[in-house]
């Protein structure tokens, strides 16, 4: 069944926290609501559970990829040309270390950025149910649930003091 969405908007963090508490009491899980804000509130301000993420894995994978690419590049560019080294080893280790360091760091940074885009679900310009007033300081409480539960959620939010609502029929791309 297609999920519906409702976005409740208010100015006040306390009202939003009350609404979240009331929603959780009525059995709404953390997967069914999201809080949209213009600034980063401290974790747990609205009573939400801390989210799990795998961002820390990305720099390690990136560092490994960058290191491998730099290793191949530095070995390859030294082995391919028939350079006369006067009896010295063909592979010059100290410069290799420098370039491999830069490659490792570049890989780690690139993958960290890919990681945050992936983990934050920043996949494109589509916003789903959204209101421009959020960047003006309004706090949005977005519920994605089945149509029956949406009406209940709206009533709960209204009971907590949220008066402004927006609705949408969507596949729920906000997760």
């Amino acid at each position: 069944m297609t999920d519906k969405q409702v976005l409740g908007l208010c100015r006040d963090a306390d009202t939003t926290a009350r609404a979240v508490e009331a929603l959780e009491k009525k059995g709404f899980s953390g997967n069914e609501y999201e809080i949209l804000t213009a600034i980063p509130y401290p974790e747990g301000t609205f009573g939400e559970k801390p989210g799990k993420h795998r961002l820390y894995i990305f720099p390690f994978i990136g560092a490994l990829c960058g290191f491998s690419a730099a290793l191949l590049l530095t070995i390859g560019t030294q082995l391919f040309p028939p350079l006369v080294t006067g009896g010295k080893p063909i592979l010059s280790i100290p410069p290799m270390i420098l370039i491999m360091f830069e490659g490792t760091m570049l890989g780690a940074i690139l993958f960290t950025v890919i990681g945050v885009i992936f983990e934050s679900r920043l996949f494109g310009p589509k916003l789903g149910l959204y209101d421009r007033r959020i960047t003006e300081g309004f706090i949005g409480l977005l519920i994605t649930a089945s149509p029956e539960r949406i009406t209940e959620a709206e009533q709960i939010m209204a009971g907590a003091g949220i008066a402004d609502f927006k609705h949408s029929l969507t596949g729920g791309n906000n997760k």
Partner: protein
Amino acid sequence: METEKNITEKQLHKDLLAPVFGFSRRFWIAAGVLSFVLLAAGLGFTWMLIKGLGVTGLNRPVMWGFMITNFVFWVGISHAGVMISSILRLSRAEWRLPLTRAAEVLTLMALFTAALHPIIHSGRPWRTMYWAFPYDFSREIWPNIRSPLIWDVSAIFTYLISSTLFVYIALIPDLAIVRDRASGIFRSIYGALALGWRGTNRQWQLHGIVSVLLAALILPVFVSVHSIVSWDFAAVTSVEGWHSTIFAPYFVAGAIHSGVSAVVVVMALMRWFYGWGKYLRPEHFDAIGKLLIAIALGWFYFFSMEFIFGLYSLEGPEIALRNMQIFQPPWSIFSIVFLLTAFFIPVSLLLFRKVRRNILAMFFLGITVNIGMWFERFLIIVPGLARKTPFTFDWGTYRPSIAEIGIVAGSFGLVFLGLLIFAKIFPLVPISDQKEGQAFKGEIQIGRVKIKTTLQD
């Protein structure tokens, strides 16, 4: 004296988004003047391309002159962003908030400009591709990774990409703010750039983590870049004054010194040009002034060690070079200007709170330090090459040509035009950070005094 005031969200948007959504006459005048300056570089460069490197003052034995000096200078300036942004972010210095983006963008523009200089200096820019990138498979021409010049390419390339991503990631919440106020095609463009940012708690949580993570990852790159630039010189054993083991930390400290001073100049310009006195207040100048004292002292320590150990070796050629730098004009005049402007004048004045809180004074001190630091690089590069050595059949001094002077002047035009255009397209003061600072600040009364507080997660 201006003090911190409560700024409403509406006012904050109006002030900080004004350059993005409006065109002022000031903008066009500044863009025109800077383009004209940039044209000087364009003309100098074109003349050099047509006639060859002979139009420059470069000749045996001084083959590195103004362009390489300027390269090192701009690489140094590019250390401003990471110093202000990463180090102060990791140390949670709240006063950094309004200056971070300008410092980061200054990094980008300065690094881009720096990277152009060795390419221009080569005289045949298209040929630099052969030694920098492994692409010429048909003729089997590969980069020689043993050369410090290739280390430069890899370090600067890494730093440029990393800094660009650092700026972009920090910019995403502000791009969403612009998107929500733009219309038509601009809304679509900013929407695409904002990647669908909605400000969910997950997005904010990860944004906070990635800011710290990227700051920590960029720091080693930042140190490596100017270390590697210093090895362009330090790896050369035949030039006195270059072959020094202390060059890497000395260059990094110098880069931070000139970079942070450049940020002071940009801060003052932002304050005057955009009327952002409410956001860039005297207390910010005061804080960065104190930071500058600490940095200048650190840099001076490395400078002294480099100089003293040069003399302590009692090697004839090294002593002769120092003698030339200190007692022979014009090098002696440059040395006096360098020491006075890079260290003695600014540090002695910055000790006074009144000076640190005077925007005009700070602006001129920022320029003064950078004049000195430009001369420092010039004095490292040119005298060592110009000095007569036993086995060279040709020696002489160096006189920059008008083409080189044009390129150096134009580089300043390029950096400031880049900043101006960036500020026209994107918010130059981080709006989300400002809002966060406003939302979580407060005052507590202790006895008879009120103490300003900032809530931190």
